[in-house]
């Protein structure tokens, strides 16, 4: 039997009076078979609740195959706006017989189990409200073609939940219309099953649970979007002209989204031409190579990849670092080592990305923590890459990239493109003594020229071999050392340009928390939960490497600083300790590495057990 990882977590009793309704504060887990159309059902439910004004988040836990294996989708409904993974399951849609027993076991007491009436449970529970549904009959009555029955069966639980939880049927219909892009026939077919299921439940199943969705006004003006789409949108707004890529989960949907958005944003329908080239390559090595070549020749070039693909790009990142070629790499992190868990989230690439390449290298890394930052870093990465003339790696992850998140709408970029230090033929004339790798300004960043520059002095041969200030091959020790020293100066300049941490300072805080990326929602929720238990924490969210003084100042204020992350070795904690060795003893790593998104409960439990050890 396939085991759901968090089965080991014991359900916690609901801490409320037995008679009180639970409104907009629970998780729904739909346990289905992947490839069966359950994604449509889950997203319709999520969007309908969202349009009722209730904050939601969705987490898809799916297998690495095409169809037929267990998959779980969690919809968290949160009146307080929390979007992190919630460890408890209050409402279970048990539509997969293979996992039904484990799924039922993980329900909280007083929970709800909606299931086809032909699914059986080895250990039925008396403390759970069961709602058996005649799925086969309802699907048959819909008159749908036999080939489509498995797909449309999931609409039965949509209708059942709509009835049981008071989800607005108008919003269900609107979500279906959106999903099927207004095509009347599939909308009518699917909605017909939803209505039939709702009516059947109303007529046959008295409600015996306490859960309810009630309209709120907390999502007005918000959007629902995934991080990969936000990143693609941001990159196109940042003037991306070359994207080379090779398919790999979970970064594939970033370029899929780019392929959909690019014609809207950057094509000329009159001339049938585009201002971008998106190329699917033969492997990730070639993708990186095209990006390096394009960046060298003056294009805003990027690729998107994950784990094993990033490994293949090592040599090219090394070259781009040393030849000082701007390029952008989106690494949508997934679980490693090796092929690992292709469909599970992780923050395991931090160290390998930061030090990518052989020899002494260190790269600019951006860590988006929200949809807005996925969008903004989409264009900011290009500005930094061209300003610093170096690779910029944006470390997102599967949770951020592939799951749907509520977000404030994106705003039009408020700063012009920064094309960095590029000399035109005329500008070059003002330099009495120009060299491609000469540090004229003292910031470690030289001036470059682009191929095609008609000034006879503009040409240079870029290389990954040893070179002097004029880009001429050199094995002289002083040339080599001078160049490495300048690259270190450049990296220190980067420290002043990358996005600074976001600090949430509490006056009476006794501890500090440091986190980054997709763990942000869990940590913010954890801060609230900790305060309720008498522990006040300040919170600093890292948004980029290299680290800088804001972090050092934060570390100075607290005797204990908990660094929260999703990897096995506390990778960011190690970097924090390296950055501020005088405060190394204050660092307390909190890390978990099991493929699941971070939960606030885990953060709270870890900190409470450290702050109040049981004796």
């Amino acid at each position, binding site marked *: 039997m396939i085991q759901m990882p968090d089965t080991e977590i014991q359900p916690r009793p609901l801490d409320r009076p037995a008679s009180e309704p639970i409104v907009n504060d629970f998780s729904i887990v739909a346990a289905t078979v992947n490839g069966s159309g359950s994604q449509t059902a889950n997203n319709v439910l999520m969007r309908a609740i969202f349009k009722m004004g209730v904050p939601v988040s969705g987490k898809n836990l799916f297998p690495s195959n095409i169809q037929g294996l267990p998959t779980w989708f969690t919809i968290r409904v949160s009146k307080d706006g929390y979007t992190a993974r919630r460890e408890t399951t209050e409402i279970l849609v048990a539509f997969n017989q293979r996992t039904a027993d484990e799924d039922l076991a993980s329900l909280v007491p007083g929970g709800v189990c909606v299931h086809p009436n032909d699914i059986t449970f080895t250990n039925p529970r008396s403390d759970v409200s069961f709602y058996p549904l005649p799925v086969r009959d309802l699907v048959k009555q819909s008159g749908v073609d036999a080939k489509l029955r498995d797909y449309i069966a999931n609409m039965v639980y949509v209708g059942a939940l709509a009835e049981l939880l008071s989800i607005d049927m108008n919003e269900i219909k609107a979500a279906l219309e959106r999903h099927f892009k207004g095509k009347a026939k599939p909308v009518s077919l699917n909605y017909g099953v939803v209505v039939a299921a709702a009516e059947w439940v109303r007529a046959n199943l008295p409600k015996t649970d306490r859960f309810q969705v009630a309209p709120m006004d907390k999502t007005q003006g918000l959007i629902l979007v995934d991080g990969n789409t936000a990143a693609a949108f941001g990159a196109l707004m940042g003037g991306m002209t*070359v994207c080379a890529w090779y398919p790999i989960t979970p970064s594939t949907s970033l370029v899929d989204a780019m392929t959909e*958005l690019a014609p809207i944003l950057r094509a000329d329908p009159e001339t049938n031409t585009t201002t971008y080239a998106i190329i699917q390559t033969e492997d990730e090595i070639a993708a990186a190579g095209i990006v*390096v070549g394009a960046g060298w020749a003056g294009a805003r070039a990027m690729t998107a990849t994950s784990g094993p693909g990033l490994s293949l790009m090592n040599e090219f990142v090394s070259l781009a670092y040393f030849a000082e070629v701007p390029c952008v790499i989106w690494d949508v992190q997934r679980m490693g080592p090796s092929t690992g868990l292709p469909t599970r989230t992780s923050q395991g690439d931090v160290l390998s990305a930061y030090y990518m390449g052989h020899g002494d290298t260190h790269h600019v890394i951006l860590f988006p923590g929200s949809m807005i930052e996925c969008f903004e870093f989409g264009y900011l990465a290009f500005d930094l890459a061209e300003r610093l003339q170096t690779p910029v790696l944006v470390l997102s992850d599967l949770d951020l990239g592939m799951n749907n998140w509520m977000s404030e709408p994106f705003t039009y970029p408020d700063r012009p493109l920064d094309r960095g230090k590029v000399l035109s033929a005329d500008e070059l004339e003002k330099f009495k003594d120009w060299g491609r790798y000469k540090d004229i300004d003292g910031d470690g960043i030289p001036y470059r020229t682009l191929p095609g520059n008609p000034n006879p002095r503009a040409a240079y041969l*870029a290389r990954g071999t040893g070179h002097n200030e004029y880009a001429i091959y050199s094995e002289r020790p002083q040339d080599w050392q001078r160049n490495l020293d300048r690259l270190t100066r450049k990296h220190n300049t980067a420290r002043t340009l990358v996005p600074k941490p976001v600090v949430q300072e509490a006056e009476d805080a006794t501890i500090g928390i440091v986190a980054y990326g997709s763990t942000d929602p869990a940590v913010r929720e954890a801060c609230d939960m900790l305060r309720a238990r008498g522990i006040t924490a300040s919170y600093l969210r890292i948004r980029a490497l290299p680290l800088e003084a804001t972090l050092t100042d934060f570390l100075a204020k607290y005797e204990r600083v908990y660094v929260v992350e999703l990897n096995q070795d506390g990778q960011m904690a190690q970097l924090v300790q390296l950055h501020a060795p005088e405060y190394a003893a204050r660092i307390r790593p909190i890390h978990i590495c099991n493929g699941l998104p971070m939960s606030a409960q885990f953060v709270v439990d870890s900190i409470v057990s450290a702050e109040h050890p049981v004796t």
Partner: protein
Amino acid sequence: MTVETKTNGKPNVNRIGLTSQDYRGGETTLCQGCGHNSITSQIIAAAFELSLAPHQVIKMSGIGCSSKTPAYFMSRSHGFNTLHGRMPSVTTGAVLANRTLLAIGISGDGDTGSIGLGQFKHMVRRNVPVVYIVENNGVYGLTKGQFSATADVGQTLKYAGTNVLPPIDICIEALAADCGFVARSFAGDAKQVRELLKAAMSFHGTAVIDIISPCVTFNNHHDSTKSYDYGKAHEERLQDIQFIPRFDEVHVEYEEGGERYVQLHDGPMIKLRKLGRDYDPTNRWQAIELLERARQNHEFITGLLYINTQRQTLHEVMHLTDTPLAYLPEDRLRPSRERFEQAMQEFV
């Protein structure tokens, strides 16, 4: 160096006022007599004769002796010495960024026939516009004498022993990937190299020239099939090749006395006078058959093996805007607010 002079004492200049000296690079660091140096000389001569604007050329290479040579020609052109086997992808990126550049890619037999074979064939598949020169000596020179994948069966080297594996034929691989310009030549045949280079520099797409280029240090001994002596004794030219630039007046006369003309993009032509063998270089089947027979019969055939001017380049299939991507101004790089709002409607 002495500047080439006419009898009247003035330097010989081309149509844009440059001398052949203007197309030179730095001093070679390769072995004296190296075939790669001969090829470099012919690149300089071809660029001079075509009156190429140096700033419109990029010189790309991978790793190996041959990949050092971009430093030895056209010092007024930008260049990129990239990674072992990876020049094709970098070149693809560069010409996407700026479609007006003429890319000259220099590679070797290890760089292309081994580590770079995948990139090479996918570059050809994409018809990236590049003059792709393989300086083929059948041996790893910088690491002092191991067989490369193009070494013939039975070849012997001092330290590496006897090669027992069949060679990878660069030209066959190019044809398999549907390359529109495939040629083989010999570094000791200077005129043929130069004419093929000029034709390739005018070709619209990937032009592959596999040039047998003897390694005088490790693979020029008496029984080597990639030595100068072997080449001189065994080379069989398919045609007498002459490149005719666009600005020359020419009467187009087909099949007169065994001559044939192939017209290239924007007007230049290649004149082919057949020698001995009756051969049609526009027939891909014939090219593949020729190479297979040559392999079986241990023949060393040089010349233009195949040409097809009909394939679209990567730029064309991508429908890229006329302005090079690298030169697009901000108002074309960053979408307008109207388009931004239109895209945002997707998420509300």
